[in-house]
């Protein structure tokens, strides 16, 4: 009996208006039965697409047109808008995302999978419609493989606490890298401490690229799991995911990819990457905070024990036992962040309309421009990470000799230039770089060369002040 049949036998007290997608081609399109209401239909359809000017013409993005879609640029910071260079921390949000969140809260803020009334059905359709959008955006073959979580951190913790606790035992090895964000490090530390297992780390070379020969050597120790970031949030390195996945699989390991810094900035297709788990945060991809995604192969999700217990993740509850819900709802205990998921759907519509290959090219050109402008415009500035923009995403990390990055960031703030200073949740990477802290400028679809010019001018002022 499929879950959908079980639900209908239940006398309609269950919530989900989805057709079963157990068939041979569970493509996400059409998987959702949109409720009868017209509003529900429009909600599940793509939300507002970017300003036509942004996508007209041939290839390059027009960031000036894109900026008109982002209300934050209307704010005045001393006669100019902010030069926002901290998109690796969180992205700005286009109006369509703001409207999607507001629309839910203002017009159909019912709970999902529960209400047998129009508002509840609209909310469910929009929430599940967002799941379809995520599946399509990252190339998932099956919408049931999309678990909504708060952020990439929660996605990774979910895998560590469920798959990890079941499959990692004493003496087992998990391979990570020196590039990892703390969110792809600490959950595994907690796990190996509990299980008396081991962590090993792929080192980086002088340009911050993983040393593949060392990775191969670590694979010969037969790790159970390899977990690494697609793109380094610390220094921008783009890792060769597919090649590493193939070699890890050949060695018998499963692979988790942290996509927090790749999904917002380049085409990502989990089927092509062939990884087993993939995590990303919606709030770095133009979506609201509180939106994040775990993707995993369905058979893995189905075999994993639940993460949290509560409502929604159940089919039947008795005093001493529970039958869990199907995936992905088994992992979505409690009322989810419905507005955030709907907002994420709108954000992915926005990015899809821009086209991710064009987003990547825009940011590659910006990165090349920034690397050149900083190297030639700010004497003595020390750049970290790959030298070529082809090998790095829109993350440019640097130190200004003699000036602490916190001072750099405070002083730049006086010029309405917003950068990040610190270790960017990558303390081991910073130990490897030999810096307690760095300054980081990171880009998004709305970043212009003008923002980078303002950064360079402001850095020269800082240098003059500290000279």
């Amino acid at each position: 009996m499929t879950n959908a049949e079980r639900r209908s036998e239940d006398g309609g007290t269950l919530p989900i208006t989805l057709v079963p997608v157990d068939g041979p081609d569970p493509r996400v399109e059409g998987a959702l039965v949109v409720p009868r209401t017209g509003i529900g239909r429009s909600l599940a359809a793509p939300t507002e697409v970017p300003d036509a000017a942004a996508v007209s013409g041939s290839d390059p993005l027009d960031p000036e047109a894109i900026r008109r879609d982002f209300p934050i640029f209307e704010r005045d910071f001393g006669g100019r808008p902010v030069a926002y260079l901290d998109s690796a921390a969180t992205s700005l949000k286009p109006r369509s995302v703001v409207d999607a969140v507001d629309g839910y809260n203002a017009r159909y803020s019912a709970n999902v999978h529960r209400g047998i009334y129009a508002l509840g059905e609209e909310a469910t359709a929009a929430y599940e419609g967002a799941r379809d959008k995520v599946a399509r955006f990252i190339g998932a073959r099956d919408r049931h493989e999309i678990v909504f979580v708060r952020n990439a951190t929660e996605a990774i913790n979910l895998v560590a606490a469920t798959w990890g606790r079941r499959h990692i035992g004493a003496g087992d090895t998990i391979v990570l890298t020196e590039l990892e964000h703390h969110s792809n490090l600490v959950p595994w530390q907690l796990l190996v401490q509990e299980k008396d297992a081991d962590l090993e780390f792929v080192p980086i070379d002088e340009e911050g690229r993983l040393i593949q020969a060392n990775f191969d050597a670590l694979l010969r120790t037969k790790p159970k799991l390899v977990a690494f970031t697609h793109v380094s949030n610390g220094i921008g390195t783009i890792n060769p995911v597919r090649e590493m996945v193939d070699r890890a699989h050949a060695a018998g390991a499963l692979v988790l990819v942290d996509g927090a810094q790749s999904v917002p900035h380049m085409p990502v297709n989990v089927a092509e990457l062939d990884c087993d788990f993939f995590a990303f945060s919606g709030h770095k991809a133009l979506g609201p905070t509180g939106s994040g995604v775990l993707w995993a192969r369905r058979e893995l999700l189905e075999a994993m024990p639940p993460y949290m217990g509560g409502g929604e993740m159940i089919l039947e509850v008795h005093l001493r036992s529970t039958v869990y819900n199907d995936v992905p709802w088994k992992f979505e205990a409690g009322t989810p962040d419905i507005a955030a998921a709907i907002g994420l759907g709108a954000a992915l519509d926005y990015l899809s309309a821009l086209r991710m290959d064009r987003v990547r090219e825009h940011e590659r050109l910006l990165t090349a421009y920034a690397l050149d402008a900083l190297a030639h415009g700010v004497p003595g500035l020390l750049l970290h990470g790959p030298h070529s923009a082809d090998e790095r995403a829109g993350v440019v990390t640097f130190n200004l000799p003699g000036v602490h990055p916190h001072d750099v960031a405070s002083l730049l703030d006086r010029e309405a230039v917003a950068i990040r200073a610190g270790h960017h949740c990558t303390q081991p990477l910073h130990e490897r770089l030999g810096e307690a802290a760095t300054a980081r400028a990171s880009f998004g679809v709305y970043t212009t060369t003008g923002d980078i010019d303002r950064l360079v001018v402001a850095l020269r002022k800082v240098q003059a002040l500290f000279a």
Partner: protein
Amino acid sequence: MDDLYRAEILEHYRHPHNFGTLEHPDVTQEGSNPLCGDRLTLMLDIDEQGNVAEVAFTGRGCAISQASASMLTDRIRGLSLAEVSKIGRQDVIDELGIEISPARLKCALLSVDTLRRALEDRVAWQAETEEEPA
């Protein structure tokens, strides 16, 4: 931009006072700012009368944390522990004399918080508690 840090702050940063180590300190205390990875090591010689006979610090950090350590160590040299106990976190911020944004408060207070931990067995602190100033 030049109005953010007074010239005196920059001068303390370029040439911090009391920067170095003591040979046989009575008290050594390390402090760190987890936000930025800055570290500070504070060393104190306390004489028999209970006065701060000598003080030094090492470490690396931003202009605000270094200047505040430089100023604070100047201020406490020669004071009795009773006098030291009256130094509050707000006093340190006042002495810096610049606008400290909430994000930089930990930088400004690293030295005084490290001093408080260094002397927690010897001094009943009189000013405020570990709460951050409003």
